[in-house]
C-alpha cells in the first residue's frame, strides 16, 4: 500500500468490514423493515464512512454517502418507509462505496468514475417524499414512490401499525426494483468493471482481505494450546534423548522446530503496538496540564513498539499514573520554570523500544527532578528508616525510596496524584508481570522513569533448580549468572557479615540466600554450593540451591486460590517429565529477605532510642596482620582508591591532592600501632574522614563492609589509638576514635583547607 497513509489503510479495513455488514443488514432490513435497531446500525455505518471520507477529503465518496445518509435518516425517523426499491437503491450506494474504496486502495485517489446519476436518483428518492418536487432523473420510480409515500404515511403515523403498510407495498415492489435496475447505465458497468479493475492487483491481497479481526478469547485459547504443545514437545525431547533412535530423533527435531515457530507465530498474533495505549495519553496530558495551569508538550517515540496484549493491559494503569505524576509533581508551573531559566512549556517524553528480549518504556520529564536529600529527610521523618540508614543510602538508592510503601513526596494531596499509595502500587503492578522499574533524577533538570517488561507472559525461558526433593523454575529474566563452589572454595569464599552469609563476587559483596531456608526445608551440608545470581528490585543476591538442572521453556500457570497468598511463588508449570514444578518469584524472595533486614534496622533504631550510643553503624576495615578496625560511619565522607604515585609529601606527612584540596593521609595501622604491612604497588584504600571542616584520608589495607551493630560485647582493650574493641560480625574489631586520628595531624588550620 505504497503511498497510502496509515490512516487511510485503517479506514479501508474498517470500511470494508462495515460494508459487508451493511449488505447483510440491508437485506435483513428488507425482511423486517420495522427494525429500528437494524436501521440505526446501517445509518451509523454510512455515517461513519461519510465522516471519515470528508475528513480524508474523498469528496465523491462523501457526496454519495451523504445522500445515502439523508435517505437513511428519513427512514430512521419514519418519514419514509423502506421499500424494495429503496433497498436496492441503498445497496447500490453500498456497491458504489465499495467501488470507490477499491479505487482508493489501488490508486490512492477516488478515480474518475461518476456517481452523479446515483446521487441524483437518491436525491429524487429523498424528495419523492416531498409531494412538490417529483421531477428529476429516474423520475419514474420517484413518482411511484411519491404518490404512495405520502398517501400511506399519514395512516402509518396515525394508528396503523407499520407492519401493515409493508404488505400493502410489497406487490409493486418487484416492478420498482426492476425499474430501478434498468435505467441504470452507470451502476451496471461499474459492477462489471470491478472484477477487472481488481484483477491486475491480484498478486497482492487487498487490505481488507489481508487482515481479519479475531476474538481475543480465541487467541488466548490458541496460546494455551501452544503452551501445551511446547510442554509436550519438552517431554518428547526428553524421551527421545533417552533412546538411540535416529528416526525418532529426526522427527522430534522437526517437531521442536515447528513447535518453536508456531509458538513465535501465535505470540506475534497477540502483539499490539504500544500506541493503542499511548493514544489515550495526549488527552490525559492536556486535561491535566490545563487543570494544573501548566503547559506540557507530549512527545512519543517508538509508538510502533509491540508487546503482548495482556502485558499492555497490565501496564495501562501504571503508565497513566506515571504520566500524571510527572505532570503533577515533576513539571513545574510556567512561572517556576521561567525562574529556573527553562522554557515555560514543559516536555514529557515517552520512549518505547525493544532491548534484550524485553520492552523498555521510558517516561522523561524536564521538570524539577527529585532531591535525594529531601527523600532522605522524609523517610526519616516518617519513621520508615533510621537517620544513619538513610544517610548511608547512595543518591540512587535514596531516589528509589519513592517506591517504598507509605511514601509520597507531594507535600499537599491533590486530586491528581499523591495519596501515598501511588508509586509502590505502580512498582508492585510492574513487578507482578515480571517487569522492573527504576527511577533516576537530575535535581533541577528532570526525572526519568524506566520500566522494563517482558515481551510475553505465557511462555518464558526458565532455569530449573532443586532444593531438597523439589524442583523449582526461576524465570530467566531475573538470572544474571551461575556460580559453582566446591567445598574448599565455599569454606573460604563464603563469609559471614553479621550472621548473614555473603560471597565475594569479583570484589563485590553478594548477599546469599539459602533457598531451603526460605522455603522452610531442612538444612543440609552441601558438598558443592550452587549459587544462582539473581537480579531483583535493583539489587542482586545469590540464591543457594542444591543443584542446577537445565533451562527450559515453561508455561506459566496460575496457582489455585488455596496457594495464591504464598508470595514466593509466581505460579507453577509442568516439566518435561509431566511433574509439576513451582515457579519462584525472585523479587518476592528478595523482599522477604529485605524485610527481615528492614525489621532489624527498625529494631536497631528502637535500641538506639533505648540505649543511645551503643548501636552504631560502623565501617569495618582490614589492617595488616588480620586485624580489623571499625570507623564510625558518621565520620566517613567517602571511600577512595588512590594510586601510590599520587601521594606527595608535605613535611612529615603524606598528602594527596583531592578535589581541589590537600588531603593529609593517616596510616591507620600506625595510629593503632601496628607493623604497617602495606602492599608495595597496590593502590591505597583510603577512607576519607571528616571532622567538622577538616578532612583526612585514613589509609587501610582493605575495606570490608558497613554493619549496623550493637556494640555490647566490648572491652577497653586497644592499642591506645582507639575507642576500645567490640565484636562485630563475629570478629574482634578495634574501634577507631576519630578525634585521635585527627589529633595526630598538625596545623588544623593550615592543612586540608581549600587550596
Amino acid at each position, binding site marked *: 500500500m505504497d503511498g497510502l497513509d496509515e490512516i487511510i489503510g485503517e479506514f479501508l479495513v474498517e470500511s470494508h468490514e462495515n460494508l459487508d455488514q451493511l449488505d447483510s443488514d440491508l437485506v435483513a432490513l428488507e425482511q423486517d423493515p420495522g427494525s429500528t435497531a437494524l436501521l440505526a446500525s446501517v445509518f451509523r455505518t454510512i455515517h461513519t464512512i461519510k465522516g471519515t471520507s470528508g475528513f480524508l477529503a474523498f469528496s465523491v465518496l462523501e457526496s454519495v454517502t451523504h445522500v445515502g445518509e439523508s435517505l437513511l435518516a428519513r427512514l430512521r425517523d419514519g418519514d419514509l418507509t423502506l421499500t424494495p426499491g429503496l433497498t436496492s437503491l441503498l445497496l447500490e450506494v453500498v456497491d458504489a462505496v465499495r467501488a470507490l474504496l477499491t479505487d482508493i486502495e489501488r490508486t490512492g485517489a477516488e478515480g474518475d468514475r461518476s456517481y452523479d446519476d446515483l446521487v441524483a436518483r437518491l436525491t429524487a428518492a429523498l424528495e419523492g417524499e416531498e409531494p412538490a418536487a417529483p421531477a428529476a432523473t429516474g423520475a419514474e420510480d420517484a413518482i411511484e414512490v411519491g404518490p404512495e409515500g405520502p398517501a400511506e404515511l399519514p395512516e402509518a403515523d396515525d394508528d396503523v401499525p407499520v407492519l401493515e403498510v409493508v404488505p400493502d407495498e410489497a406487490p409493486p415492489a418487484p416492478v420498482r426494483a426492476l425499474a430501478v435496475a434498468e435505467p441504470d447505465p452507470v451502476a451496471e458497468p461499474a459492477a462489471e468493471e470491478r472484477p477487472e479493475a481488481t484483477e491486475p492487483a491480484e498478486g497482492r491481497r487487498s487490505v481488507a482481505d489481508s487482515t481479519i479481526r479475531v476474538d481475543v478469547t480465541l487467541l488466548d485459547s490458541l496460546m494455551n494450546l501452544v503452551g*501445551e504443545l511446547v*510442554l509436550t514437545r519438552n517431554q518428547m525431547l526428553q524421551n527421545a534423548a533417552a533412546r538411540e533412535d535416529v528416526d525418532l530423533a529426526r522427527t522430534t527435531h522437526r517437531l521442536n522446530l515447528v513447535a518453536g515457530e508456531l509458538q513465535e507465530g501465535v505470540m506475534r498474533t497477540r502483539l499490539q503496538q504500544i500506541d493503542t495505549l499511548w493514544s489515550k495519553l495526549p488527552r490525559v496530558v492536556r486535561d491535566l496540564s490545563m487543570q494544573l495551569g501548566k503547559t506540557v508538550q507530549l512527545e512519543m517515540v517508538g509508538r510502533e513498539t509491540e508487546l503482548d496484549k495482556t502485558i499492555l493491559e497490565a501496564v495501562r494503569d501504571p503508565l497513566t499514573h506515571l504520566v500524571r505524576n510527572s505532570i503533577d509533581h515533576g513539571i513545574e508551573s510556567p512561572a517556576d520554570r521561567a525562574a529556573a531559566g527553562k522554557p515555560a512549556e514543559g516536555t514529557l517524553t515517552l520512549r518505547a523500544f525493544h532491548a534484550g528480549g524485553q520492552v523498555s518504556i521510558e517516561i522523561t520529564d524536564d521538570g524539577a527532578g527529585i532531591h535525594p536529600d529531601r527523600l532522605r529527610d522524609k523517610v526519616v521523618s516518617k519513621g520508615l528508616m533510621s537517620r544513619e540508614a538513610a544517610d548511608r543510602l547512595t543518591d540512587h538508592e535514596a531516589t528509589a525510596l519513592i517506591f517504598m510503601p507509605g511514601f509520597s513526596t507531594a507535600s499537599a494531596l491533590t486530586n491528581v496524584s499523591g495519596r501515598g499509595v501511588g508509586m509502590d502500587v505502580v512498582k508492585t503492578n510492574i513487578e507482578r508481570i515480571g517487569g522492573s522499574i527504576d527511577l533516576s533524577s537530575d535535581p533541577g533538570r528532570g526525572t526519568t522513569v524506566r520500566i522494563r517488561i517482558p515481551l510475553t507472559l505465557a511462555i518464558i525461558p526458565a532455569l530449573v533448580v532443586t532444593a531438597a*526433593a*523439589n*524442583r523449582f523454575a526461576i524465570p530467566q529474566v531475573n538470572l544474571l549468572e551461575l556460580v559453582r563452589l566446591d567445598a574448599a572454595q565455599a569454606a573460604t569464599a563464603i563469609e559471614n557479615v553479621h550472621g548473614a552469609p555473603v560471597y565475594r563476587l569479583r570484589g563485590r559483596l553478594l548477599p546469599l540466600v539459602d533457598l531451603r531456608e526460605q*522455603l*522452610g*526445608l531442612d538444612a543440609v551440608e552441601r558438598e558443592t554450593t550452587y549459587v544462582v545470581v539473581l537480579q531483583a528490585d535493583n539489587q542482586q543476591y545469590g540464591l543457594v540451591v542444591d543443584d542446577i538442572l537445565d533451562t527450559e521453556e515453561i508455561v506459566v*500457570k496460575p*496457582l*489455585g*486460590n*488455596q*496457594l495464591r*497468598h*504464598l508470595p*514466593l*511463588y509466581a505460579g*507453577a*508449570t*509442568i516439566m518435561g517429565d*509431566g*511433574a*509439576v*514444578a*513451582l515457579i519462584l518469584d525472585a523479587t518476592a524472595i528478595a523482599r522477604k529477605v529485605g524485610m527481615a533486614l528492614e525489621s532489624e534496622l527498625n529494631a536497631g533504631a528502637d535500641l538506639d532510642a533505648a540505649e543511645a550510643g551503643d548501636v552504631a553503624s560502623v565501617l569495618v576495615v582490614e589492617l595488616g596482620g588480620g586485624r580489623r578496625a571499625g570507623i564510625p560511619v558518621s565520620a566517613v565522607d567517602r571511600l577512595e582508591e588512590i594510586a601510590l604515585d599520587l601521594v606527595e609529601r608535605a613535611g612529615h606527612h603524606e598528602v594527596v591532592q583531592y578535589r581541589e584540596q590537600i588531603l593529609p593521609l593517616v596510616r591507620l595501622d600506625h595510629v593503632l600501632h601496628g607493623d604497617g604491612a602495606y602492599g608495595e604497588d597496590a593502590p591505597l584504600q583510603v577512607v576519607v574522614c571528616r571532622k567538622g571542616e577538616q578532612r583526612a584520608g585514613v589509609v587501610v589495607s582493605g575495606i570490608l563492609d558497613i554493619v549496623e551493630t550493637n556494640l555490647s560485647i566490648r572491652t577497653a582493650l586497644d592499642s591506645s589509638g582507639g575507642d576500645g574493641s567490640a565484636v562485630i560480625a563475629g570478629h574482634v574489631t578495634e574501634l577507631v576514635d576519630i578525634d585521635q586520628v585527627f589529633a595526630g595531624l598538625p596545623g588544623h588550620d593550615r592543612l586540608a583547607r581549600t587550596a
Partner: protein
Amino acid sequence: MSQYCTFTLDGHLFGVPVSSVQEVLRAQALTSVPLAPSEVAGLLNLRGQIVTSLELRARMGLPPREADAPSVNVVVKTADGSAVSLVVDEIGDVIEPPREAFEAPPETVPSSVRALVSRVCKLDRQLMLLLDTERAAQVLEPA
C-alpha cells in the same frame, strides 16, 4: 432426586453431588508446596491443568491417615471454574437417596466437620454427610 458420589474418611461416609465431581483418580505423584498450609497435600498435573490437592482429613481436623494406607483423589469443580482435588480414604458407590432423607447436621457433629457439612442424609444403615465442596476447597490463609 440427585445422585451423590460417596467416599469414606476416618470411618465416616461422606457424599458430594455427582454433578460437582470432575473425576476420581488413584493416588498420584504430588509436587509438595513448601510453606503451604498443612492441609495442602501438593500439586497435581491433571492433563495439563495444575490442580491443588487438599488432604481432606487435615481440612476437617481428623487424625492423619496411616502411612501406607491407600487414598483416592476426588477432583471436584469449584465455582470459579477451576478444580480442586480432595484426598479421601476410599471411594464408595453413587447413591440416589430420596429428598426427604436429608436433614440439617446434628449439633453433636464436631464443629470442624460441621462447618463443611451442609446436610446429613439418613441412609438405611448409616448416615451420609453431604460435603460442601466450595467451603472444603477454601483454605484459610495462615495469620
